[in-house]
């Protein structure tokens, strides 16, 4: 732990450590991740009410900026924003402006001109939400809804919520993440979050073609064999296997992958008896997970979706409140400077 802030934290946090953007789980303080989970807990009930709304984001405009198409993640963000009473604008950029030659920066300037308060960004390039967060007006919050292979922090936090819900906490937990680690932004964000929250061990399991070089540098132990990797784990997280992986010489076939790494009841026996099974969805039955497991008693896959809305509500409301406190602090310091010297010009 170095005294200087990591570059990601400098962007994500206000001077007094509040969340203003949510771009990655890496390097965030444990207390902040716990805050997200606690805040989410207070929102879980909202979904069960007759009127499923709280007024925290009333009068705020949330723009869903999806450069990569996604129905599921976008819908949960949309629902989360609506339950917080925000106005929501959905932009499917994959099909619009940038394909007409407009640069990302020009697109951003146009959206800023519409007085948005928050951008929820999904982009195919790793680091795109960082670039956007560095470029937007300081008062606009940026939430990363998945960038390249880099991060998918809200997915990771809903997974943390799920784990805490079923396991009571993180101390002593062994968690295995299985499958296409190389291309997975979900796995990266999960590893960071699990380590920060105090899990005992995070394991990555897959064939070497789907494990990134120096995967240990993420903060995990690496296995290529399911029997060893799943031994005595408390949580098994299966990742979705994209069909394209067969075309680029990363895997020979779905069949061989399923035989080696697909989770069925036999392989689940290696884990602890009370181990839970998770998956960020959408699942490929018979490729990375057998129906007997996906629909079985240990699966908490559908509960993850429910918690996802609450976690996204938590992150959105915290980032907006961080932004508001930041601009209040800025306004206050400007006023005091003007009061002291009157030197600052009107803008």
């Amino acid at each position: 732990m170095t005294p200087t802030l990591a570059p990601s934290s400098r962007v994500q946090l206000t001077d007094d450590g509040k969340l203003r953007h949510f771009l990655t789980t890496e390097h965030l303080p444990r207390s902040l991740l716990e805050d997200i989970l606690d805040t989410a807990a207070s929102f879980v009930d909202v979904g069960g009410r007759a009127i499923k709304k709280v007024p925290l984001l009333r009068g705020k405009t949330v723009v869903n900026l999806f450069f990569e198409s996604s129905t599921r993640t976008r819908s949960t963000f949309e629902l989360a924003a609506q339950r917080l009473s925000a106005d929501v604008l959905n932009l499917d950029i994959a099909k619009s402006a940038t394909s007409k030659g407009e640069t990302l920066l020009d697109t951003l300037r146009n959206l800023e001109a519409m007085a948005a308060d928050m951008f929820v960004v999904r982009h195919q390039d790793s680091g795109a939400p960082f670039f956007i967060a560095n470029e937007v007006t300081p008062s606009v919050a940026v939430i990363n809804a998945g960038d390249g292979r880099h991060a998918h922090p809200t997915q990771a936090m809903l997974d943390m919520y799920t784990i805490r819900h079923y396991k009571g906490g993180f101390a002593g937990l062994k968690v295995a993440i299985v499958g296409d680690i190389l291309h997975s932004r979900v796995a990266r964000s999960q590893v960071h979050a699990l380590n920060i929250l105090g899990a005992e061990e995070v394991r990555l399991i897959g064939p070497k073609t789907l494990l990134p070089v120096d995967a240990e540098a993420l903060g995990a132990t690496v296995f290529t064999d399911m029997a060893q990797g799943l031994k005595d784990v408390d949580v098994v997280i299966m990742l979705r296997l994209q069909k394209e992986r067969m075309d680029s010489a990363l895997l020979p076939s779905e069949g061989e992958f399923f035989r080696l790494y697909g989770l069925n009841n036999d392989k689940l026996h290696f884990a602890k008896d009370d181990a839970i099974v998770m998956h960020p969805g959408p699942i490929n039955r018979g490729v990375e997970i057998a129906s007997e497991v996906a629909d079985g008693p240990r699966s908490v896959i559908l509960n993850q979706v429910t918690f996802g809305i609450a976690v996204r509500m938590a992150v959105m409301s915290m980032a907006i409140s961080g932004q508001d406190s930041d601009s209040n602090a800025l306004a206050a310091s400007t006023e005091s400077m003007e009061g002291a010297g009157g030197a600052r010009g009107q803008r």
Partner: protein
Amino acid sequence: MHVASANRNRAHILIRKGRVIDPASGRDDVADLLIENGRLTRIGASLDAPGADIVEADGHWVLPGLVDACVHLSLPGSGRTGDIASETRAAAAGGITHLAAQPDCGPVDSTAVVRLIREQAGQAGFARIMPIAAMTQGLLGEQLAEMSTLARAGCIAVGNAGGKVANSLVLKRSLEYAATFDLPVMFRPQDSALSAGGCAHEGPVATRLGLPGIPAVAESVDLSRDLLLVEATGVRAHFQQISSRDSLRLLRAAKRRGLPVTADVSIQHLLLDESALEGFNSHCHVIPPLRSAADREALLEAVADGTIDAICSQHTPIGSSSKAAPFPATKPGMAGSGCAALAGLATGQ
């Protein structure tokens, strides 16, 4: 023309008490230099030159004009960022008087392009450009370029500027043809399949940032094939922008075998490593990518022990808009031959 004659008639210049470094003569001491009519006439302690303009250089270095073995020009290609005048002015400001320019502007595969480059550099008058000719037509890696004609037009070497050569047969024939005229060949080793889609060194930083990687073997695999073909054809070869430890091992062995090979490294790779990419710093998006700290250490050692023969700027004229995008979407390259060469010298000292 006007500038040149003005130079000839200007007052004599006495540069006093600078640290005079001249590798050609082995000189490195504090001395005075007298320049008369644009020519260096005397070096010595406490020179006296009545009427000369005095330049006090105490605490500064006085160097011969530097040669930058690898720059990218943007003319006569797109011409959108910088032109030959601005590029050569920037180089001269950094003490660079000769620039070996990569053939990827244009491409440099006809005498007309070579003439255009040399003419524009001559008119600007800041530094001399020594063009490297395209080895294959259009740098497409399929048919031989007119290497002999291009050399007669003023090209000092041939190369394919990192462009893919179709296959080993075309490469072998290109080398044989270049060897016919004793033309040196400039290689930029990087296997195109192993580097496809990558934008960062395949290592812990790229893994954490989720950036598609270019492994170090992308360079050394290509380099080992190149070295075998150099040996088979007897061509003189210069390897540019060496970035990895494994490549240095191959180069050392080749030099030990007596192959006519030299190599350079770009200043970025001596000063920075993969950690510079933290926070998705797109200014450090360069090809070959900034590699590990261990690679950087090895490169510094290789400069010291002579395995690497030259440090170059790998200057790429690049507008700020080319860097204003998410990291993988930015244009690779770094501007700045101005200060780069001197920084390189400082690193070597």
